């Protein structure tokens, strides 16, 4: 019954690709989200409206559409830029080929950055203003205020939303196999078609995702406990 028909290594490397892709996209979207939330809360009108347009459009358009749009167009734009650079000088020839992994990371990061922006915006607002004023009064620079006061407290409020976003990103990586990334689903499909046992192999791919979900649930619980240190909870 549990016969991988020699496809074990492919499935394993596909799983590793899936994990790498989701962790990298998480990193990109996390940073974009911090940037977007800062822009949304800033007093500058232009930053604010750019961030608002970004979150509105991204959250209104399906991720698969954006993924195809970015994956196919990005390469054309990159080619245009390198052609232009090459036309300026002739000593060095630029060239850049975007593989599915890179464009998948960029796209997923770009899409989920919009969701993180909303998560972080709410979390930033949840930190009492007096704390930031006190930190400024101590003479801390804005960077230090962010690192020592705002970020650690903001994380506690952001964690539930962050956990949700992470679960969504993990499942969204499945879409990247549609644009040709050899992740765990691609490996399962290949194995299933070769052995006429698609049902078994796709179930296996699903099981991999289930295990990853269970593991990340555990990690999130630990993180929540860490960031809740020193907070008194109401006893019901």
């Amino acid at each position: 019954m549990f016969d991988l028909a020699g496809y074990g290594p492919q499935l394993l490397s596909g799983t590793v690709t899936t994990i790498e892709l989701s962790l990298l996209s998480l990193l990109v979207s996390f940073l974009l989200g911090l940037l977007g939330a800062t822009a949304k809360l800033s007093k500058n009108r232009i930053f604010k409206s750019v961030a608002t347009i970004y979150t509105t459009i991204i959250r209104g358009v399906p991720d698969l559409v954006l993924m195809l749009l970015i994956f196919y167009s990005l390469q054309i734009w990159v080619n245009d830029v390198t052609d232009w650079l090459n036309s300026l000088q002739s000593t060095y020839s630029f060239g850049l080929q975007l593989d599915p992994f890179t464009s998948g990371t960029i796209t997923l990061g770009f899409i989920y950055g919009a969701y993180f922006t909303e998560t972080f915006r709410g979390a930033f607002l949840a930190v009492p203003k007096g704390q930031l004023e006190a930190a400024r009064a101590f003479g801390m620079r804005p960077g230090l205020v962010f690192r020592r006061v705002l970020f650690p407290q903001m994380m506690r409020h952001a964690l539930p939303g962050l956990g949700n976003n992470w679960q969504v990103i993990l499942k969204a990586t499945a879409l990247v196999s549609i644009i040709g990334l050899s992740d765990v689903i691609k490996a399962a499909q290949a194995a299933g078609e070769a052995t006429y046992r698609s049902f078994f192999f796709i179930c296996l791919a699903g099981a991999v995702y289930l295990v990853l979900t269970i593991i990340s649930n555990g990690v999130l619980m630990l993180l929540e406990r860490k960031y809740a240190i020193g907070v008194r909870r109401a006893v019901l």
Partner: protein
Amino acid sequence: MIDIIKQYGLAYLCWDGYHISGVAMTLWLLVLSCGMGFCLALPLAIARNARSAVIRFPVWLFTFIFRGTPLYVQLLLIYSGLYQLNFVHQHVLLNDFFRQALNCTVLSFLLNTGAYTTEIFAGAIRETSHGEVDAALAMGMSRVTMYRRIIIPSALRRALPVYSNEVILMLHATTLAFTATVPDLLKVANDAYSATYDPFDAFTLAALLYLCISFVLIFAFRRAERHFLAYLNP
């Protein structure tokens, strides 16, 4: 952009010459899967809060599995996995059902959205204030009447904001239908791209249409919230 609209405009909206396609197909998928998902979720949400663990556990398992795996995997499993099983292949009715891409797509969509909706409704039922239940019991209502008159109406109202989110996400998820050759909006865009080699215009047009549908849905749900949750802001 103009050329694509001239050539594929009708296909983007409703008719590709052979089938219903584009926006019409996407909306049809959305209505089918959300409608049937809703009907599936309501009894399951009640079962999810049942006292006996024998009823609660299978529902928990169902929502756990369908919320823990990507919809794409579920679609693949139903679309290409099930058809390779012998008993599906040999059974006349099952064979007819699973041979059609649209059936497989709608089945996987409705199971997926059903799982999420079950958790949404179950959460809303759990939050029913105990006073309402006490009052209903004091009035001598049977359990069925209590669910029908008190618990479900108020739970559905409370679930509306979260449920509207789920419907929007389901709209986004219907794009997966194109991997199963169902001619939805994204499939038309993909065809236009393969014919013209102009990815930006072809997919941007689709993105704009999806954006419009999203906005209409958000607007409609906001109206519905104002209507059904009017008692919250007097």
